[in-house]
């Protein structure tokens, strides 16, 4: 376990860096939405091998929103939709948990109760923990 945490963090960071440098995972939209059964999306052509999901706010005060972060990394994310509802949100996080994706909190967390905080609580309840103290990368530890 102690050896696994830094390795997974390192892999995630290397993956992100590679995507940024090569631009290999430019935005390709939500081609997997129908397969997943809700408005989920993956950011790039190599997404079938991706085991990283990005959550966050749609538009934080500074920096990119979670969609931009996810697409730049070729990661999974929940596509914003007018048909959003708490059930779809919950189902999306359940699917993330079932796959055992690593989850990156891609934006600063705004004060107060929010959908993002509920997502994080749901992940923690399912056994997710920060990859290391203070990390924005959450990894699943429970079976």
């Amino acid at each position, binding site marked *: 376990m102690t050896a696994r945490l830094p390795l997974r963090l390192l892999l995630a960071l290397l993956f992100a860096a590679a995507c940024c440098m090569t631009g290999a995972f430019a935005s390709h939209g939500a081609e997997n939405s129908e397969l997943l059964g809700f408005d989920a999306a993956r950011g790039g052509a190599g997404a079938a091998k991706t085991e990283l999901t990005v959550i966050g*706010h*749609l538009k934080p*005060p500074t920096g990119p929103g979670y969609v931009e972060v996810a697409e730049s990394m070729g990661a999974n994310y929940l596509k914003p939709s007018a048909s959003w509802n*708490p059930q779809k949100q919950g189902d999306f996080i359940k699917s993330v948990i079932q796959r055992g994706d690593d989850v990156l909190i891609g934006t600063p967390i*705004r*004060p*107060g*109760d929010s*959908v993002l905080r509920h997502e994080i609580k749901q992940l923690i309840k399912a056994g997710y923990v920060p990859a290391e103290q203070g990390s924005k990368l959450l990894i699943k530890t429970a079976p």
Partner: protein
Amino acid sequence: MALRDQVLKAFPFLFEQAGFVFVGPEGDDDEVIVIAESADLRLRFIQDRADFFLDVGSSKNPQKWIGSYDLLDEMKSKGLVCETYKYSNRIGSVSSILRKTLPAIREYLA
């Protein structure tokens, strides 16, 4: 209801008394971000799923935003805001807090 209409309904004091107008072209019903501006202040309203967020900026520096609660906390730490508030991300609560603190925010960011 479109976000622009929600903002008009929840924040009438901005448009009827404080000189704010919407900036940018009118979006469709799926619009999730709208910006209103006065001579000195810019406000960015964001509908993020079930949450409603407000960012504040100066008209002098239109690209720079600060979250409304971050701004209020900063002002409170300097003794510039005496109102108590909770971190609520509901449109009614945000409107109520802004109505009370708008003069102080204007003075602080001027």
